[in-house]
Each structure stands twice: as structure tokens, then as C-alpha cells.
């Protein structure tokens, strides 16, 4: 590798080089990811957008240490990923709250998993819940909450340890449009208060642009990065930013990338 590239790689927090992930199936190998080269600096909010089957969730799961790469390298903070990195927050499409625990106990689950003293973290958990408007629900159980509230709790659980990386796998895909807008705004507020490296997987172009400092556009068969866009919209971004020409230009460029790749064709 040439020295210039190595220097750039060293400055990055998450680095994938010629990363490949191949699954074996009964109909032969499936290339979920092929030759992914990407460097993500510390504190960047990166949206991964693409159609289903483009490997965006697989890439996220590789960074989470939940899947092993089959080719190339992947490192977080200079260390190759072989298991889930320390101080990792993760939020899935399903909130996966534990029904038998109160909201507060759900948020404190990561703390319990690491055998840290609960007492020291309770105030932090309550502060997070208050910040996201769930202060008075701390002692309720998940089944008493709506889908949007449950997902807010899941985000608090992801943030409790102040992780250096927050991985979000289509966290708002199952929510209605209004709740989704609310949560987009709240996520931005939380991130601005304590910027951490966020990888946000979505299949919604608007959401990707609204939230991201950068959007990685992914293509399928094989899964790869087709375009890499910096989103230079000032923060905090109000919902109205979506009606600005600059926003529309970004969204159009992403859509055009997909069109050039042959997406959206079947309907026309």
C-alpha cells in the first residue's frame, strides 16, 4: 500500500480495506460485500443507504463484530475487529426491549452486562430518559409504551455507556412518518450534545441526507459502495431543511446513482 493511503487510513477511526463478506448457500456463494474501501473519522455521522440486499446491514454487523469478514481488513481505532468492540452502542429496527424489565432497567442492561455498579449509572440513565421525553416513564414497563417510545428507550440503552460508536440498523423503519420525523430530530439533538461516530443504516434517502454528515450509497449484487457524498448542510437541521434546494440536490444525486445502477426500473 502506498504511504499516502496509509496515512489517511491511520487518521480514520473505522477503516475497511477491500472488505469482503461471502456467505455460502445451497446455490453457491453469495457476495454480501465486495471490496469495500472506506475510512470513517471519529465523530462522523454516516448514513448507509441502499436497497435491500445491498449489504448495508452486513457492513454494520461486521463493524459490530457480529459477523466475521471473509476478505480484506476491518479495524476500529487501529485494532482489527474480531469481536464486538468495547464501548459500542447498538440499536436495531426492532427495539428488542426486555419486557420483564422496567424502562430504567432496560436502559441499564449494558451496565449490568459489564458488572458495573448500577447506582453510579442510574442518574445518567434518568437524565437520558428525561432528555428524550421519557422521564416519567422510567418505572413503567415496555408494554405500556408506544412503538416510538420503545425505540427511544432502545436509543437510551445504546447511549448509556457513552459509546464511541453508535450503530443503528434501520432504527425508525417500523415507525409512522410523524414519529420518524420526531425521532430524527431527537437523534440529531442527542448527537450534537455528544458527537460520536454513528453508522446509520436506512433505505430512506431523505432520512439518510437529513441525518448524515456523509452518505454512503450502496449497490447490490455484489454489495458495494457506489457513491460517497459529503452533506454540507448546517446543523442543527430543522425538518424544513428537507424543502431546501441544497437538500433536494443531495437527494437527487443519490436517486440518480440508484437509477444508474438499475434500481427503480421494474416499475417504469
Amino acid at each position, binding site marked *: 500500500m502506498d504511504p499516502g493511503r496509509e496515512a489517511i487510513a491511520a487518521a480514520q477511526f473505522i477503516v475497511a480495506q477491500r472488505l469482503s463478506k461471502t456467505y455460502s448457500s445451497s446455490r453457491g456463494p453469495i457476495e454480501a460485500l465486495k471490496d469495500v474501501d472506506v475510512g470513517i473519522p471519529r465523530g462522523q455521522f454516516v448514513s448507509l443507504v441502499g436497497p435491500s440486499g445491498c449489504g448495508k446491514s452486513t457492513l454494520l454487523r461486521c463493524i459490530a463484530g457480529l459477523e466475521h469478514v471473509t476478505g480484506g481488513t476491518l479495524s476500529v481505532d487501529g485494532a482489527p475487529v474480531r469481536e464486538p468492540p468495547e464501548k459500542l452502542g447498538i440499536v436495531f429496527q426492532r427495539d*428488542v426491549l426486555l*419486557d420483564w424489565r422496567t424502562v430504567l432497567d432496560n436502559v441499564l442492561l449494558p451496565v449490568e452486562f459489564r458488572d458495573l455498579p448500577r447506582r453510579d449509572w442510574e442518574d445518567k440513565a434518568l437524565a437520558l430518559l428525561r432528555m428524550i421525553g421519557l422521564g416519567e416513564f422510567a418505572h413503567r414497563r415496555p408494554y405500556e409504551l408506544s412503538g416510538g417510545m420503545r425505540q427511544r428507550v432502545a436509543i437510551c440503552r445504546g447511549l448509556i455507556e457513552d459509546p464511541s460508536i453508535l450503530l443503528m440498523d434501520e432504527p425508525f423503519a417500523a415507525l409512522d412518518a410523524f414519529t420518524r420525523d420526531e425521532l430524527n430530530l431527537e437523534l440529531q439533538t442527542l448527537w450534537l450534545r455528544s458527537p460520536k461516530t454513528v453508522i446509520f443504516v436506512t433505505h430512506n434517502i431523505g432520512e439518510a441526507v437529513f441525518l448524515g454528515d456523509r452518505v454512503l450509497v450502496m449497490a447490490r449484487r455484489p454489495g458495494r459502495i457506489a457513491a460517497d457524498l459529503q452533506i454540507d448542510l448546517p446543523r442543527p437541521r430543522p425538518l424544513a431543511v428537507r424543502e431546501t434546494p441544497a437538500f433536494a440536490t443531495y437527494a437527487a444525486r443519490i436517486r440518480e446513482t440508484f437509477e444508474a445502477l438499475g434500481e427503480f426500473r421494474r416499475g417504469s
Partner: protein
Amino acid sequence: MHNVKSVTSVVGVLAACTLLWEILVRMLGVPLFMLPPPSAVAQAMIENPHIYAYHAVYTLYSTLAGFALAVVLGVVLAVAIVQSKFLERTLYTVLVTLNSVPKVAVAPLFIVWLGTGLEPKIAIAAMIAIFAIVIDLVHGLKSVEPDMLDLGRALRGSRLKVLVKIRFPHALPALFSGMKVAISLALIGAIVGEFVAAKRGLGYLIMLSQGQYDTPTMFAAIVILALLGIALFFLIDAIERLVLPWHASRRREGTVPVTP
């Protein structure tokens, strides 16, 4: 409320059937040793309550002891099966296969091995009850959402942590539904044990009264057994409500998780 209404109608139907039984037996002049009227059964109970209490306590004891043994062994087996692919392939397959063997047929063996005291009754009750516990609990432990297990892995949790904090609590409703079946099975096991060889217990009382053509006593013992079975079932149900309020209220409202 729905519950009160359904209880009232159940009691009503039972009362009507009992009344019909009484009238038909009297009208048709059925001999007492063939089919006693409900009044004769009630009379048998009222005349000698201490006898029934004496036998019922014994049966209740072996049922509860057998049930407890089945729960403890069942939980250990289910956890072991879920934690080990090897045990799942071998032990679990054997258990599921053995479950289709009529276990009552094995009961006389336990008398040979353990004598005619309390031990074989407890063992038979446990043997019959354990399958329901193991099969339901294994299912519960395995039906944890993959995302939930990924969460546990992402938190760098040990297998023990994932078992204690995620898998086992998640499987508690399944364990309780297994226990509700198992408690009735344990009662059957205790009675079977008493049928084969015993000196005490409601099963023994039924066999003894049969020899004497004392049909009212047989019926009385059967009624007490039925009441015992119902009471034990609702006892487990009540414990479930107490231990798993989150599960009970979800069922009551008929709501399932909101997220698709």
C-alpha cells in the same frame, strides 16, 4: 367483568348437570353400586371427612414433591440442552421420543426399584410431569429473537450473562405454561403410583372401595381429586400472575408487541 360472568355460567351448567344426574338416578332406580346419586356422594364425604383428608394429604404430598422434582430436573435438563448442540442432538431427541411411550406402563418398575412407600409415587409423578417442563422450556429458551441475542453479544456478554439476563427470563412464560400442564400430569402420576401399590392416598382409597363395591366413596375420592387438580392448576396460574405481571397484563389486554 368477563371473568365473573364466565365463572357464573360454568357453575350454573355444573349445578344443572348435577341436578339432572340426581333426578335421573332416582327416577330410573339405578342401583347405588352402579351409579350413586350426587346426594349419596356428598353424604359419603360429610360422614367421614377425616378419611378423605388423610388420603388427600398423602396424594397431595407426592404430587407436589414429584412436581417440584420435575421442575428442578426439567429446568436443569432444558438449560443443558439449549447450551449444548451435542445434548440437543442426543438427549433432547431421546426425551422427545420417550415422551411418546405410555409412561403409565413403566410405573410397576418403579415399585420394584423403590418399594411401596412414598418414593415411587414421587418418582412416577416426576417422570410423567418432566416432559412437559423440558419441552416447553427448551422451546421458550430457543425462541429468543435473534436481535436480542445479537444485543447480548454486542454487549460482550458471556453465555452465562445472556442465559441469566435474557434467555431465562424470556422463557419464564413458557416454563409456566409447561408447569400448568405438568402439575396435572404429576397428580396423574401420583394416582398411578397409588394404583400399583400403596397403603394410603386417594388412588389407594379408590382401589380399596372398588373391592368393596363402595361406589359412593369412589365417586367422593374422584370429586376430591378433580377439585385438587383444579386447585393446583389455579395455584400455578396465580403464581404466574404474581411472578410475571408483565406477561399476564399483556395477555389480559390481548396486545402483542407493537413493532412488526
